[in-house]
C-alpha cells in the first residue's frame, strides 16, 4: 500500500500549474458542490428542487438509483478533493503523479454520464419533459446543469491538463464559454436570475473589457469611465424612445452609440494628454462626475433631467420580442462580447497593442522610438469608450430607462474593481473578474441572508439564521477587496508583465514632465 502511494505521489516532479489551471479546477469543484447543495439552499423559500440525490433515491427504482448514486458520489468526491490534495502537495513543493490525471478525468467523465443518466431516469419515471415547461414551485433542474457543467469542466481540465498548461488562455475560453452560453438554460426557471445575469454580468464584462484598454493596456488610470457608459446609454436612449420621437433599431444603435462614445472618449481624453498617474485619475474622476450632473440638469433638453429617459424600445428580431425573452438580450450581449474579446486580443498582439504597452512602460522612450503619444493615447481612450458605448446601448434597451443615477461614481469603481480583481491588462482576467464580481458581490452577498436563514433552519441553529447580512454587505465587499490585494495583488489571473511589475513597483514619468510642460 505504501509503495502504491509513493508511486502516485512523486516528490521531485516539477511544478507547472498555472493560474488558469488552478481556477478551472476550483471552479469545477465549486460547481459540483454547488449543484449538490443547491436543493438545500433554495429549498424552503424559493421554487423547490426537482433533481437532487435525495430525489433520485426516493423516486428511481431503489436498486439502480442507489448504485448509480453511490458511483456518482465517489466521482464527486474525487473532483471535490483533488484540488485540496493537489494544492496541499504543491505548498510542500510536490506534485501529483500524471496517472492521477487520468483517474480524475475518468471520474469526471463517469460523473458527467451518470448525472445525465440519473436525470433522464428521474424525468422518465416522473413522466416529465426533459427541458423546461415544469410547473412552477415544483422542480428546477439548475442543480443538474451545475452538476453536469462541473463534471464537464473537470473532465476537460484534467483530461487535457497539458493543453491547459500550455495554452491557458485558449483553454480558459473553452472552459468558460459553454458556461456563459448555457447560463440562461441552467436557470431557466428563475427568470429573475436570468435578468440579473443579463443586466450585470454581460454589461459589466463589456465595461471591464473597455476600461482594460485604457487602464490595462495603455496604463492611463481612468476613474470616470462611467461617463462614457452614460454617453453611450443616453445617446442610444434618445434615439430609440418617445422622448424625441426617434426610433432606430438597436442593431444600428450599438454602432452609433459606440461611435458617439468613441468621439467623446477622444474629446475628454484630449485635455488629459499631459497627465499621468494620480493627476490623470483626478481629472477623469471630474469627468465622471460632470457627465451625470449634465444629464440631471437636462442639458440642451436632451436628457430628460433627473427622471432620465424612459420607454426605450425593445428590439424585435423576427417573432422574438426581447422584452418578453430577456435571455436573448443575454445571448446577443454574449455574442458581441465574444466579438469584442477577439478584436481586443488581436489588437493587443498587433502594432497598436505594442504601442499602448510601450506608452505604459515608458512614455519618453516610446516617443523617442517614433510613437506618436498623442494619437496613441487618444486611440486608447476612444477604443475603450466605444466598448462602453456598445454596453450603454444594450443597457438602455434592457432596463427600458436610463437616468443619471445609473452612471454614478460607484459604477466606475465597480468596473475598476473588476479589472483589478481579475488582473489588469489580461483579457481572460477581466472576464473572470466580471464573473467573480457579479456572482459574488451582486448575487452571493445579497443572498447571504436567505442562505444563512436556510442553514439555520436546516440545522436548527437560530444564531445563524439570526445574522442580518444585509447590514454587512459593504463590509464583506471591502474585506474581499482587501484580502485580494494582500494575497493576489496582481489579480486572479495576472498578466505576465503585471505580475513581475508589481513586485518591483517602478513608476515611469510622463513625456510632458520631462519636456517641462507639466
Amino acid at each position, binding site marked *: 500500500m505504501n509503495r502504491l502511494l509513493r508511486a502516485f505521489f512523486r516528490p521531485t516532479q516539477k511544478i507547472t500549474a498555472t493560474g488558469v489551471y488552478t481556477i478551472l479546477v476550483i471552479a469545477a469543484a465549486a460547481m459540483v458542490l454547488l449543484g449538490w447543495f443547491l436543493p438545500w439552499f433554495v429549498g424552503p423559500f424559493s421554487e423547490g428542487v426537482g433533481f437532487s440525490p435525495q430525489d433520485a433515491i426516493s423516486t428511481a427504482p431503489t436498486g439502480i438509483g442507489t448504485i448509480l448514486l453511490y458511483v456518482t458520489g465517489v466521482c464527486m468526491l474525487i473532483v471535490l478533493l483533488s484540488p485540496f490534495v493537489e494544492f496541499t502537495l504543491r505548498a510542500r513543493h510536490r506534485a501529483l503523479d500524471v496517472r492521477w490525471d487520468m483517474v480524475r478525468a475518468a471520474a469526471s467523465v463517469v460523473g458527467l454520464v451518470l448525472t445525465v443518466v440519473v436525470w433522464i431516469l428521474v424525468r422518465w419515471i416522473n413522466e416529465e419533459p426533459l427541458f423546461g415547461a415544469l410547473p412552477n414551485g415544483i422542480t428546477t433542474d439548475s442543480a443538474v446543469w451545475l452538476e453536469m457543467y462541473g463534471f464537464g469542466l473537470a473532465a476537460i481540465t484534467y483530461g487535457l491538463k497539458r493543453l491547459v498548461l500550455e495554452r491557458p488562455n485558449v483553454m480558459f475560453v473553452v472552459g468558460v464559454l459553454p458556461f456563459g452560453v448555457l447560463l440562461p438554460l441552467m436557470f431557466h426557471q428563475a427568470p429573475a436570475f436570468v435578468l440579473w445575469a443579463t443586466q450585470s454580468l454581460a454589461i459589466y464584462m463589456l465595461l471591464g473589457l473597455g476600461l482594460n484598454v485604457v487602464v490595462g493596456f495603455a496604463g492611463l488610470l481612468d476613474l470616470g469611465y462611467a461617463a462614457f457608459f452614460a454617453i453611450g446609454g443616453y445617446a442610444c436612449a434618445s434615439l430609440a424612445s418617445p422622448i424625441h420621437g426617434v426610433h432606430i433599431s438597436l442593431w444600428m444603435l450599438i454602432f452609433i452609440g459606440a461611435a458617439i462614445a468613441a468621439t467623446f472618449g477622444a474629446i475628454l481624453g484630449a485635455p488629459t494628454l499631459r497627465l499621468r498617474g494620480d493627476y490623470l485619475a483626478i481629472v477623469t474622476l471630474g469627468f465622471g462626475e460632470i457627465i451625470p450632473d449634465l444629464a440631471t440638469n437636462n442639458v440642451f433638453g436632451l436628457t430628460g433631467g433627473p427622471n432620465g429617459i424612459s420607454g426605450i424600445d425593445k428590439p424585435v428580431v423576427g417573432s422574438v420580442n426581447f422584452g418578453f425573452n430577456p435571455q436573448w438580450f443575454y445571448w446577443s450581449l454574449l455574442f458581441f462580447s465574444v466579438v469584442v474579446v477577439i478584436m481586443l486580443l488581436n489588437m493587443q498582439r498587433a502594432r*497598436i497593442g505594442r504601442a499602448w504597452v510601450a506608452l505604459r512602460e515608458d512614455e519618453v522612450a516610446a516617443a523617442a*522610438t517614433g510613437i506618436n*503619444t498623442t494619437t496613441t493615447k487618444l486611440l486608447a481612450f476612444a477604443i475603450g469608450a466605444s466598448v462602453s458605448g456598445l454596453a450603454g446601448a444594450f443597457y438602455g434597451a434592457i432596463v427600458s430607462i436610463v437616468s443619471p443615477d445609473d452612471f454614478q461614481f460607484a459604477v466606475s469603481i465597480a468596473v475598476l474593481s473588476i479589472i483589478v480583481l481579475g488582473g489588469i491588462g489580461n483579457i481572460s482576467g477581466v472576464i473572470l473578474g466580471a464573473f467573480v464580481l457579479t456572482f459574488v458581490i451582486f448575487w452571493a452577498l445579497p443572498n447571504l441572508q436567505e442562505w444563512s436563514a436556510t442553514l439555520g433552519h436546516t440545522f436548527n441553529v437560530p444564531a445563524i439564521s439570526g445574522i442580518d447580512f444585509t447590514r454587512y454587505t459593504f463590509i464583506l465587499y471591502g474585506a474581499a477587496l482587501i484580502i485580494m490585494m494582500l494575497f493576489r495583488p496582481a489579480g486572479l489571473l495576472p498578466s505576465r*508583465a503585471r505580475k*513581475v*511589475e508589481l513586485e518591483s513597483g517602478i513608476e515611469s514619468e510622463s513625456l510632458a514632465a520631462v519636456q517641462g510642460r507639466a
Partner: protein
Amino acid sequence: MTALLELDSVTKQFGGLLAVSSVSFSIGEREIISMIGPNGAGKTTAFNCVTGLFPLTRGDIRLDGHSLGGLPPHRILRLGIARTFQNIRLFSYMTAVDNVMVGAHWWMKARVWDGALTTPRSRREEHAVEQRALELLDLLGLANYAGNYARELPYGLQRRLEIARALATRPRLLLLDEPAAGLNPQEKNELMALIARLRGEGLTVFLIEHDMRVVMGISDRIVVLDHGEKIAEGSPAEVRENPRVVEAYLGSGASQEMRSA
C-alpha cells in the same frame, strides 16, 4: 563633406541654469563623432535637444538643412534620428523582440482595424517585422533572449537591446548616450566593432562617452563640452593635445590617461 546635422548656437536654459550655452558644430554624413566632457557638462541635455525631448531656449538644429525646431520627438525620429539613453530606457515588461518591434512602429502600415481584424495585410507585416527584429537581435548577439522581458536581461545586453531598438527605426543618424558604460573590456571591443560596422553600412554615429579608449579608438572627430560650452573640437589627436582640454578641463591626471590610451 556635406553636413547631415548642424547645431547652430544651441542654448538650453533651465531657470537660472545654463545647461547648454551657444554650442555650434556639425556632423557630416557617415561620420563617427564623440562628445566628451565631465559630468554635468550638458552632453545629455544636448542630446535631448537634438531629439526633441527639450525645446531649445535659443538657436537652431538642422537636419539636411531643415530646421528641427519645435518638432515633437516622434517626428524627429521619423526624419531619421534615433537614440539610446544614458540610464537605459527599455520597455521593461515587453519581450526583447517586442521592444525591437516597437522601433518598427512608425513605418509599419497596418491600421488599427487591420490589427483588430487581423487582416492578411496586418499578418504579413507583423511576420515580416518580427523576422527583421529577430535579425537585428541576432546582429547584436541577443538571439537567445528574444522571448525574455527586457528587464530580465543582464545590463550589458540591455544596452545592446536599446541599440537594436534604435536600429529598427531605420535611422540615418544614431545617437548613443554612453553606450560603453558598465561594459567589460570584451564587450567594449564588440561595441567598437559594431559602431564601425554600422558606419560601414551608411549610418552616421554621434556618441557621448567617458571611456577614452572607446572615444579615441573610433571617433573621426571629438567635441568637448564643459559647463555647457564647447571648449574644443577636432580629431582625437588634436583634442588629446589641446592644452585647454588637458589642463583646464580634463586635469593633468586625465591627460596621462589619454596619452596611454
